[in-house]
């Protein structure tokens, strides 16, 4: 099978260049996150009081920040924080949203009606304000940030899964599963879920991008992860203060990293959606 890996990779790249580019960007960030202790030239939280706000160049290619910490090392370490928040947050979103979507879609009726109206309400309300309020009230711990982002994400997963379930609910195999004597939980989790999860999986990457963005925003507003943790949002907040005084590198480099990762995740999500779209699949058969 390994002999086929390369042509298959080329085939996927040809079919969806978006997916390939997104995946490549994320692979670079993942490698950065994992290898951070070895590739970062300095300790990301080591302050050098005599070398604050050094311009990029020499030993500090991205310069140093107001505490004299190496910006490059902090940007590299920030990749780990971004993944560390986004991945658990998306998992929380999936674990809460998918079963809800399954059940509401299959049951229908008033329960479905109420759940969907509630989700609509959540969607119109600006999620950043909601997140801000909750984190401010519960305290700005990493755990709270992950939980809030995940729960705010869950309606999205619930909706995607519910839409699939509505289409599958009356399909032949669900009826024949019922006729065979399957209990409801088995129909939901064994028969419907594996056929309804694709859309949610493609959503996951897009929602991870959102999680990265919102956690950075929370940190930027000062209610998320606190400095001097090398979190991109916190770094941008710090950098913003120096932007007016001309030390652009403190905020711009973490900003670029953030943009690039969000872009990569979005491209991966779009590409996956294209690739998993059954209509597209049928057309290429």
């Amino acid at each position, binding site marked *: 099978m390994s002999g086929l890996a390369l042509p298959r990779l080329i085939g996927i790249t040809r079919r969806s260049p978006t997916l390939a580019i997104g995946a490549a960007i994320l692979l670079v960030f993942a490698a950065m996150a994992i290898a951070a202790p070895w590739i970062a030239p300095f300790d990301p939280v080591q302050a050098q009081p005599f070398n604050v706000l050094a311009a990029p160049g020499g030993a500090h290619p991205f310069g140093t920040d107001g505490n004299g910490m190496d910006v490059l090392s902090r940007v590299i370490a920030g990749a780990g924080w971004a993944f560390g928040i986004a991945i658990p947050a998306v998992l929380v979103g999936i674990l809460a949203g998918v079963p809800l979507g399954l059940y509401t879609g299959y049951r229908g009726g008033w329960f479905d009606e109420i759940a969907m109206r509630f989700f609509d309400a959540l969607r119109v309300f600006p999620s950043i304000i909601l997140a801000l309020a909750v984190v401010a009230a519960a305290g700005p711990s990493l755990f709270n940030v992950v939980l809030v982002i995940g729960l705010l994400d869950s309606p999205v997963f619930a909706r995607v899964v519910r839409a699939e379930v509505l289409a599958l609910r009356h*399909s*032949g*195999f669900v*009826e*024949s*599963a*019922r*006729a*065979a*004597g*399957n*209990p*409801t939980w*088995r129909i939901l989790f*064994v*028969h419907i879920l*594996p*056929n309804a999860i694709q859309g949610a999986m493609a959503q996951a990457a897009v929602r991870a991008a959102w999680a990265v963005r919102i956690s950075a925003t929370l940190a930027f507003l000062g209610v998320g992860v606190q400095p001097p943790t090398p979190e991109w949002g916190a770094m941008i907040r710090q950098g913003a203060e120096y932007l007016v005084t001309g030390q652009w590198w403190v905020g711009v480099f973490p900003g670029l990293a953030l943009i690039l990762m969000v872009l990569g995740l979005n491209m991966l999500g779009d590409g996956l959606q294209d690739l998993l779209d059954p209509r597209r699949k049928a057309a290429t058969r």
Partner: protein
Amino acid sequence: MTAPVLEVRSLVKHFAAGRATVHAVNDVSFTLNAGETLGLVGESGSGKSTIGRCVTRLLRPTGGSIHFLGQDITSLSDAACRPMRAQMQIVFQDPWSALNPRMRIGDLIAEPLLLHSRLPATERRDRAESLARRVRLTTELLGRFPAELSGGQLQRVCIARAIATDPRLIVLDEPTSSLDLSVRAGILDLLAELRAETGTAMIFISHDLGTVKLICDRILVLYLGAVVEEASAATLFEAPAHPYTQALISAYLPADPIAPLRRIALEGEVPSPINLPPGCHFAGRCPVALPRCRSEAPRLDILSPGHRAACLRIGDGGNRL
């Protein structure tokens, strides 16, 4: 005399369609004995599939009663129906959509055993293999997914699932209609063989008279959710009494150019089951309808033992076309 496998009395099923009501099944009664194959024949809107789904309790009847093996199952809850499903199975028309695309064939065949028996996994696998062989599938297919099989093979998988728990009743809802002719023959052959081996009672739902004639002992002809005629297969084709049955049989095209055709042209199409006409539902298309057919509903009258028909013209002999 043992109790019948299935006893359906005055079955009624309505569906809501917006504000209107679809009268899918209107007062249908029949009895099915062990080992017997009953055919339900009719065109679209005749309610034949709805009857199949009510009998297997995939739908809850609006009225009437259904007794299965002596037990009243008319209004059992879904959960209460579950243990009964080991005794009663259904095979659907479209084998491509009837199997979970993400389960392997072996797991699909073994699923009823998982649900209804306490057999350990290894034994279930052995049973799945022997079931596969019984429906003439090679056991190497057990590891595949439904998308890798042909329509005929998939329908055999559905049949293997249906016989896995040795049910007393199998409802076959147009099991061969979406299959090619050559594949169809093999499936019919298999069903006949399984019936001979197991003595399972079957309800065979179809719009194809040729197939029904071949496999059924007794046939119910349905029109707009009501039985218009009931007879043994031989009687029905030799001496159809109801004008609709006669027209239906005459419209059938045997695959033989020298077989004589006796065309009885029917006007129009089956009316909507939302606004059922009063009197005999067939009166609007019937070539021999009298004015009173449009107001007076005919009863199913016994013509000879086992032969019943619902037509007011039978009394005066004017039912022959």
